[in-house]
């Protein structure tokens, strides 16, 4: 019996011992999983990623909060994987156009702007852009710019043209680039008028087209405060699309070959094949390196009947909803909108991630030491944002696909296709309860 009791005690002792070891192990493991760094994602190429890294390093130095930074080029795909795991990055720095979709899906948290130190240094128009239809705010503005027009100055001068200021002059210049010999290699017509990103990936073509349509008073949709009506098939819309149709389907075709399926039109301009390119100022550094500052000019968009409007593009900061570090999220946002954070985003080695500051105390041209940013800032004053208080993603994809079809097939049914497109946009707006 005694022996039995002793055996029992030994067993209990072993169990207790194992229990203690297990508890210690669990505690260690749990501690191992406890989040130590703020996980931040952006969609950036290697150069912009280097800039972000410098910005986050300064943030860590200042606040002591470590940052684990990931640049996700396939942002949406990678984010979906994290959504499925219900473990989102703490902070996302991404296009303003994604805010409404993320907010509606519960992936990002609402933000009270007044709770952020330095919120009053951010322009009102920037805060307006991160407001949803119901008035709630889901993002913190970080960077802003408008699409700008790049022209090969040397090519233009070789052919004896002035800087284009109207659509007619723009088309005349593009035609001369497409048919003449602007690069002086002795061969006519081996260069292209305009570099055009006709890809439907993320609905990109819809963004590019927006500017040329707006310059003629045409819009995909019009309205505000969460309710929009489709206007792309009204008389202004038809006229503007027919104008673009002539550029793509006329003779000569003013876009580079393969424009409708190229993932990016940038190489065509950067490598001296096309002479005009409308894109964001983030390309200034690489174009200057490749083409030379003396051969590159940035101009205000040549005006159509309704002016020189181009597309406003914005980058905002979002707070992932599964975070365990709310205070660190706020601290990072506060740093990123501060004069120090914004300046670093423009000047740290790499590629500027703050194209034009949202902080009203800063002057981009002075910080960059580059007069061309005066034009970039002027263009921003003449720009418009696509709807971002509603989830416009599906409508944007429909728009890009319709125009890719129209300009690939070139079969003259502009009015008919615009009517079909208007119906598709209306359906998508209706699906998100945003149809006026």
């Amino acid at each position: 019996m005694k022996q039995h009791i002793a055996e029992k005690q030994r067993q209990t002792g072993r169990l207790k011992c194992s229990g203690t070891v297990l508890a210690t192990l669990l505690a260690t493991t749990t501690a191992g999983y406890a989040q130590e760094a703020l996980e931040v994602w952006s969609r950036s190429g290697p150069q912009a990623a280097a800039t972000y890294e410098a910005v986050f390093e300064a943030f860590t130095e200042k606040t002591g909060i470590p940052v684990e930074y990931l640049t996700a080029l396939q942002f949406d795909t990678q984010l979906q994987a994290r959504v499925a795991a219900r473990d989102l990055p703490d902070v996302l720095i991404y296009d303003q156009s994604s805010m409404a979709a993320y907010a509606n899906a519960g992936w990002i948290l609402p933000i009270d702007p007044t709770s952020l130190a330095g919120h009053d240094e951010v322009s009102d128009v920037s805060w307006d852009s991160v407001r949803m239809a119901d008035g709630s705010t889901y993002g913190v503005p970080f960077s802003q710019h408008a699409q700008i027009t790049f022209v090969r100055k040397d090519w233009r001068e070789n052919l004896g043209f002035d800087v284009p200021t109207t659509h007619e002059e723009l088309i005349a210049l593009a035609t001369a680039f497409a048919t003449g010999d602007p690069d002086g290699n002795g061969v006519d017509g081996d260069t292209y008028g305009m570099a055009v990103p006709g890809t439907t990936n993320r609905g990109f073509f819809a963004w590019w087209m927006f500017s040329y349509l707006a310059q003629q008073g045409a819009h995909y949709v019009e309205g505000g405060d969460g309710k929009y009506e489709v206007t792309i098939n009204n008389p202004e819309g038809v006229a503007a699309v027919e104008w673009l149709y002539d550029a793509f389907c006329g003779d000569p075709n003013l876009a580079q070959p393969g424009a409708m399926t190229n993932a990016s039109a940038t190489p065509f301009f950067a490598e001296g094949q096309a002479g005009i390119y409308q894109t964001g100022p983030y390309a200034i550094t690489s174009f200057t390196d490749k083409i030379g500052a003396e051969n590159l000019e940035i101009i205000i968009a040549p005006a159509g009947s309704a002016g020189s409007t181009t597309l406003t593009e914005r980058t905002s900061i979002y707070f992932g909803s599964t975070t365990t570090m709310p205070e660190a999220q706020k601290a990072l946002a506060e740093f990123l909108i501060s004069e120090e954070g914004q300046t670093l985003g423009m000047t740290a080695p790499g590629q500027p991630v703050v194209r034009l500051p949202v902080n009203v105390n800063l002057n981009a041209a002075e910080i960059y030491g580059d007069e061309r940013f005066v034009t970039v800032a002027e263009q921003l004053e003449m720009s418009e944002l696509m709807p971002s208080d509603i989830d416009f993603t599906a409508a944007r994809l429909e728009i890009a696909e319709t125009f890719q079809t129209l300009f690939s097939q070139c079969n003259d049914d502009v009015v008919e296709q615009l009517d079909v497109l208007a119906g598709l946009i209306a359906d998508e707006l209706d699906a998100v309860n945003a149809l006026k």
Partner: protein
Amino acid sequence: MAAGIRMSFQEVSPFLGNQWVGWENYATVLTNSRFHQAVSNTLVLGVGQSFGAVLVGFILALLLEGPSRSLWFVRTAVFLPVVTASAVVGEIWRIIYFPSPDGFMNKVLGLVGIDPIRYLEDTSVALYAVMTVGIWSSAPYYMVIFLAGLAGVDRTLYEAAAIDGARLRHRIVSITIPALRPAIMIVSILAAVRALRIFTDVWVLTGGGPAGSTQVWMTQIYTQGFERNNLGVASAASILLLIASVLLTVVAIYFTRNKEDR
């Protein structure tokens, strides 16, 4: 897979809670005109690419069968497209297909007086341009399977046929093809299943464009899932693809067995 099946009956929103929607996702897939276009493109691409790749693989195997060292080198060179990443293959072919008159392929065709073609831009050509890339990159894989099959063909049959005065085509039709029947069947099933789930080639070459003319089932699934954020619809489309693949395999096995029984 169980999660995929479950999601195909739900409106998927991990953070707001998934909603059970019954067969709605399947109805969306089956009634969506983009999916209809994708089905027809997938079938044209699947049939054309499978047939083309099997045929080219077979011809390559006949040409490159043998023990000599130079053939070994050529076989290795021909096999390279199989081991090259699809994304790289796509980029190389984008360069080959560059649509201006001084693009590589257009220059070659120009030598025989053919006008420049907009391979990936012309809606009536793009699908066949993608098909060509698919044949180019998968035929060598089938070649290897055929080579293994050819090694098992009894040489004396060829000698006997030669003595009887059979021509080359008679020998191929009467000896080689019957002896390779199991290999042909396996290769055909592999080719068909592979063609059904083609994605990277299309995505890199055209992104499904222009005008949806190269949109296939898998690119539609990607667009629905990751661009439009309709994971439920994408899951339903994936399950339908799985069913089609299984059916195709079962039918192929059924026919193979029937032939073997006879």
